[in-house]
């Protein structure tokens, strides 16, 4: 229905205004937008080939020629950070897409049908929550071997339970609403009810969690790479770059610092945007 679409566009605009009106939301949105743009056009902006080594230029401090300096193999750090943006963001977005979808589906089923399925599923998530996320991810990544795809698989494996739990809790609230009963009373089947009536009520929770999660997934991916369980060299991955520079941190600070800053800024950006989104939804629900 066209009117419905128009109203939902109006709703989205309202949400955007609410998010942007808070300082952190605005800052977060700017950072995230910047990251997205850089990951699209970063390779064009990069002044050098990120893989090109030049031993005569190794460990040069920041200069006009190399604004972020060069690393132990003489590669331009600015170029590598710019290329790394695309890698980190792709990992984060893909992982979130995979784990949020899995968690959402399992949470919907678990919360809506309850019973044994629910009980079994929730014990499985308990198992995941019993370990720190990084430790579990390390175990999975170590078992799969270092590559970017495996990093993503490892992080997705340990990320979906949060979504499943969150969605389930939300579904439990929605399930007993009269409109669900009313939908059943007109002869709607379970699938129709789950996707048309329950799903729209839990999407916002997933959205907020996903935004907040993007930041921590970037950290997690960087962490895995840092300890050698993530992207293999010579990938321009931020965590790996920090790791490679740590030998020189006392004398050649720039090797680790710039990719480290990139990690920090992107994690911060997603967190601020996520917080603002959550607040915006709260305002809307509390009104």
């Amino acid at each position: 229905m066209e009117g419905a679409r128009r109203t939902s566009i109006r709703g989205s605009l309202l949400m955007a205004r609410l998010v942007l009106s808070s300082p952190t939301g605005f800052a977060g949105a700017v950072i995230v937008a910047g990251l997205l743009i850089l990951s699209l056009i970063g390779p064009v902006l990069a002044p050098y080939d990120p893989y090109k080594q030049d031993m005569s230029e190794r460990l040069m401090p920041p200069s006009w020629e190399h604004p972020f300096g060069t690393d132990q193999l003489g590669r331009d750090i600015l170029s590598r950070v710019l290329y790394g943006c695309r890698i980190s963001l792709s990992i984060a977005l893909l992982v979130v897409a995979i784990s949020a979808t899995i968690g959402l589906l399992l949470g919907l089923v678990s919360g809506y049908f309850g019973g044994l399925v629910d009980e079994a599923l929730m014990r499985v998530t308990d198992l995941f929550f019993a370990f720190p996320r990084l430790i579990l991810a390390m175990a999975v990544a170590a078992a799969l071997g270092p590559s970017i795809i495996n990093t993503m698989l490892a992080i997705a494996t340990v990320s979906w339970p949060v979504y499943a739990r969150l969605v389930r809790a939300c579904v439990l609230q929605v399930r007993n609403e009269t409109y669900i009963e009313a939908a059943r009373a007109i002869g709607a089947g379970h699938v129709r009810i789950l996707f048309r009536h329950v799903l729209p009520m839990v999407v916002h929770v997933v959205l907020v969690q996903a935004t907040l999660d993007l930041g921590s997934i970037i950290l997690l991916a960087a962490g895995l790479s840092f300890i050698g369980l993530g992207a293999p060299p010579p990938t321009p991955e931020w965590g790996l770059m920090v790791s490679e520079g740590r030998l020189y941190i006392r004398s050649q600070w720039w090797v680790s610092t710039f990719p480290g800053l990139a990690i920090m800024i992107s994690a911060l950006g997603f967190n601020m945007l996520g917080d603002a989104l959550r607040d915006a939804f709260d305002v809307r629900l509390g009104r």
Partner: protein
Amino acid sequence: MSSPLLEVRDLIVHFYTREGVVKALDGVMLSVGRGEIVSLVGETGSGKTVTALSIMRLLDHNARIVRGEVLFEGRNLLQLSEEEMRRIRGREISMIFQEPKSALNPVLTVGFQLREALEAHGEEGEAALEKVLSMLRRVGLPDPERLVNRYPHELSGGMAQRVMIAMALLMRPKLLIADEPTSALDVTVQAQILELIQSLVREMNTSVLFITHDLGVAAEISDRIAVMYAGVVVEQGNVYDVFEEPLHPYTRGLLAAIPRPGRELMAIEGEVPSLLNPPSGCRFHPRCPAVMEVCKRVKPRLVEVEPGRLVACHLYGGE
């Protein structure tokens, strides 16, 4: 009435809760004829809604239908598969609820939800929209073309209940179960809604099971009336007969508890019993002014004292 449209026979429903087994329905007997409006009256917790949900097979997971039959056009609904039952809901039997605004999904437009009632039974497209619009007109809602794009929060309680009625009657069901449809509405709106239901079902020859705790409303709308107490139908009959000459002591008490000017208000002594541990024999016996020794031991059966006039009380049983 040769065979009634709906016949509930000896329906026993238990709820399994943390505190124990709640014996919510204890052998409910009820019938609704074709084109007839039957009111199911009783206090909160007497099992009216549970009866309705049992007929629709929409009880929660923790409920068990222990025994009984729900015969709809001769078919026992309790033996149908979930898919067969789904096809009956909305098409043959539909339901409206007490809180019309919470019976509409807040994030979906009115039109979307109305069309869904048709889509669930395979009717889609332009024709479905046309049907929705004409139904909205029939329930007295102005400007249906704009209304379909509205969200539930933009509607008043009365409008929302009209929408619900439209939704319930879209598929021209044979039976409409109305669970306290006017209790949450203002008195003036209440009267309009009652009138609307009455005229629409007469037009469509739909039977109604009208659940209410308001005897005034029941007297207004129904052909027949069934009185429930603590999970049992204690009396059933033509609405005039029951109001003129109530047979069961509980019905008498209930009618005496309606405030009228110039008459002293009579309250029924005691409290509604806990259904976790209901009284033995007749469930009303601890509060009954005419209690006899047999009432404590034997549960009275619903017997026909006159044609169409049933009561479950040892005063009339002769057993």
